[in-house]
């Protein structure tokens, strides 16, 4: 592999970070500005004959879908693998979309590994496959594979086989997409994928486990980590016939027909979309097979969310019971204990000392009593939705807040519309939105929450940081210059931790007409731990009014009896609580100088 690109997104982020860390020195790695840029850059490398990898989370694929849809028609020369990390649950995503379905839509073959060690072996096969058939391929591990760890043996860099890329060879009839090329390529892709269905039926990772013991006429079809849950649930006992699908698209029809042969009932255990279930129902129709296919569509498997070993056990027990088999070998579900005392409710919150808390609080104070709209976006600052801040009225997808604020303001001109966007999100997809708002004469306040990193995904550098994943120091892109370049005349940069000044600036700027911007600049305290003194409460001065706790929701602020107190292991000395205490009972924070 010669070229890797991607945009951070849980649970895909660690792939590029690991490559950068273990880089033997001849692999180019970049954090792209967004997934579309990464896909296009990887496509360029692959057209030049290099092996190229591009990584993203499932919603990132939506951003990158435009180049991808066309790239499939063009094809590639060097192997190109698109790793898309799907997130059943969803644990940290907006949607539960399934890249297996996206494979069908885009006609791009999909590899679906079941474990860490399989992912390591399979991705090498995916590259070879991509090169052989001149198509980009999807590789779609889910969270439990992505954020799983496993002890495996890996090859040392000197054991790798390198191929020098041939380079880009000009051929406009091949690399320039035009309707004439598309109609020809479309038919060729359909024919190729039909043929690949046969080829993939002999791929050894699409396999059948024969039934054992008493089991006859029933089968289980599954994929990914669900295969591990299913075989774990057998608990070493007898089991029905199992089909493990490693390439959901093109679906290995011949292998599936071999699996269906002689069966009456099949249970499909899947996460996200019923991809295998639909494929089997289709096959049964096509071949006039009298097999009942159960799964999500029949109500036997839940429609959304992540499966667990325990749920898979209960699906199996029910399936066995309904088809007349004893379920004794599958451990029964352990019922929940009704006597458990109420557990703490613990949604994720902004960290103690997080500058986003100060930014939101300043806007809240400045706009008190006004009719407002707070459009949020994707990042740590989405957590500004939580009480007591309650400063996020909308959140849709990366960069959406700016134009959503514009739309709301168009319908409700008397609403002061604010769009909050992080620095990395601004670069990823906020700039075009800002131009749209400016060009169309919107009346909004853009609040760029600049903490100088991509915090939510674990502190990756971005164009504004002046550093790259390869460790290079580069010219930083200035958010102020970008905004002024667009034509904004009001671009204010403030320190959100200076509350009074922040409030004053926000009040003034919010009432100006047009698109204006405030950049709230203060570094992420997790990445750049300040060497500050910690704040502490003087119990003799504290009147127990709880204002600090009630209004800020900082995890370091607690009640110690009737007085407020500060947990020193969490406090960063940001001084926000000191600034709002009505009796000046809190002190000690701030920079040690």
């Amino acid at each position, binding site marked *: 592999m010669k070229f890797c690109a991607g945009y951070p997104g849980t649970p895909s982020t660690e792939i590029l970070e690991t490559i950068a860390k273990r880089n033997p020195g001849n692999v180019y790695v970049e954090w792209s500005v967004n997934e579309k840029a990464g896909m296009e850059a990887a496509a360029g490398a692959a057209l030049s004959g290099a092996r190229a990898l591009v990584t993203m989370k499932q919603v990132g694929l939506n951003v990158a879908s435009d180049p991808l849809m066309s790239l499939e028609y063009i094809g590639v020369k060097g192997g190109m693998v698109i790793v898309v990390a799907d997130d059943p649950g969803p644990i940290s995503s907006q949607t539960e979309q399934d890249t297996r379905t996206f494979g069908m839509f885009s006609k791009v073959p999909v590899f679906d590994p079941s474990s860490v060690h399989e992912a390591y072996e399979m991705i090498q096969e995916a590259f070879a496959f991509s090169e052989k058939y001149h198509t980009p391929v999807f590789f779609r591990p889910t969270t439990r594979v992505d954020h*799983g760890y496993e002890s495996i043996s890996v090859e040392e860099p000197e054991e790798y086989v390198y191929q020098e890329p041939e380079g880009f060879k000009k051929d406009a009839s091949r690399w320039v997409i035009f309707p004439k090329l598309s109609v020809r390529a479309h038919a060729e892709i359909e024919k190729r994928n039909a043929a690949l269905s046969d080829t993939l039926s002999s791929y050894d990772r699409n396999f059948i486990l024969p039934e054992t013991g008493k089991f006859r006429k029933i089968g289980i079809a599954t994929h990914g980590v669900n295969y591990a849950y299913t075989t*774990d649930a057998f608990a070493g006992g007898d089991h029905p016939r199992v089909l493990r699908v490693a390439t959901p698209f093109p679906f290995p029809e011949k292998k599936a027909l071999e699996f269906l042969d002689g069966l009456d009932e099949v249970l499909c255990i899947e996460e996200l979309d019923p991809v295998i279930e639909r494929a089997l129902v289709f096959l049964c129709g096509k071949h006039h097979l009298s097999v009942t296919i159960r799964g999500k569509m029949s109500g036997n498997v839940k429609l959304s969310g992540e499966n667990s*070993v325990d749920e898979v*056990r209960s699906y199996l027990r029910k399936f066995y019971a309904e088809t007349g088999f004893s379920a004794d070998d599958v451990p029964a*579900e*352990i019922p929940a*204990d009704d006597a458990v005392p109420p557990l703490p409710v*613990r949604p994720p919150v902004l960290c103690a000392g997080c500058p986003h808390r100060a930014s939101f609080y300043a806007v809240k104070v400045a706009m008190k009593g006004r009719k407002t709209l707070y459009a949020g976006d994707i990042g740590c600052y989405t957590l500004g939705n939580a009480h007591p801040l309650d400063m996020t009225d909308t959140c849709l997808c990366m960069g959406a807040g700016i134009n959503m604020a514009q739309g709301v303001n168009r319908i409700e001109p008397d609403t002061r519309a604010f769009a909050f966007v992080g620095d990395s999100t601004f670069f990823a997809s906020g700039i075009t939105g800002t131009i749209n708002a400016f060009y169309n004469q919107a009346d909004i306040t853009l609040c760029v929450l600049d903490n100088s990193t991509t915090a939510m995904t674990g502190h990756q550098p971005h164009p504004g940081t002046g550093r790259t994943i390869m460790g290079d120091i580069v010219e930083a892109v200035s958010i102020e210059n970008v905004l002024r370049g667009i034509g904004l005349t009001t671009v204010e940069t403030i320190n959100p931790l200076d509350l009074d000044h922040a409030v004053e600036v926000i009040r003034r700027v919010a009432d100006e007409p047009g698109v204006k911007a405030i950049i709230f600049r203060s570094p992420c305290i997790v990445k750049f731990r300040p060497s500050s003194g910690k704040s502490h409460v003087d119990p003799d001065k504290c009147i127990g009014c709880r204002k600090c706790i009630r209004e800020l929701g900082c*995890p370091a602020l607690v009640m110690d009896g009737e007085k407020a107190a500060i947990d020193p292991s969490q406090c960063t000395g940001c001084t926000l609580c000191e600034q709002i205490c009505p009796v000046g009972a809190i002190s000690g924070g701030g920079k040690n100088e």
Partner: protein
Amino acid sequence: MNKNIVFCGVGGQGTVLASRLVADAAMKENRHVMTAETIGMAQRGGSVFSHMRIDDKQEKSLTVVRSPLVARGDADLIIGFEPGETVRQLPYLKKDGWVVTSTRPVQPVSAMIGLSSYDSEAMISYLKKHVAHLILVDADQALADIGNPRVLNIVLLGAAIRTGEVGVEPADIVEALHARLTEKVWEVNEKALAYAG
């Protein structure tokens, strides 16, 4: 010996480091390790867990894949960094399993502003009633004795190792500590690992 271990706590308490140390030690002993972790958004003060499975050997076969998640009732040991989080994961414990837990509660913001309530004493009583082998660690005392507020994860790991239920050698944990941490914090972490009240 095959072992299933659940680490749990609140984001930022160091559950991930503790589980990596155990994984490193098990790998050093040439055993097969799998873990599944909650990381990402839940890091920010949310509930976090890490499931770990250690097997004496790994079968080399395309068709043998083990689940990285432990099933309910299958964990030999729970290492809890916070009593409420320990109770949350308790359904995963085997009938005669072990629990090593900190007794110090971490109050969620939702409870502080009155949107929920959290009685950590009730968690300790519940654990005492339902856990056959329970080791309670007084975090405040331990951290005061050691003189460092940030080594609770290693104190708990040390207590867990001494139960014998982790099934790895303490010397291998120390070696893993050295490999993962900078030299200036070796001493305090080794002190935390050996801390027995």
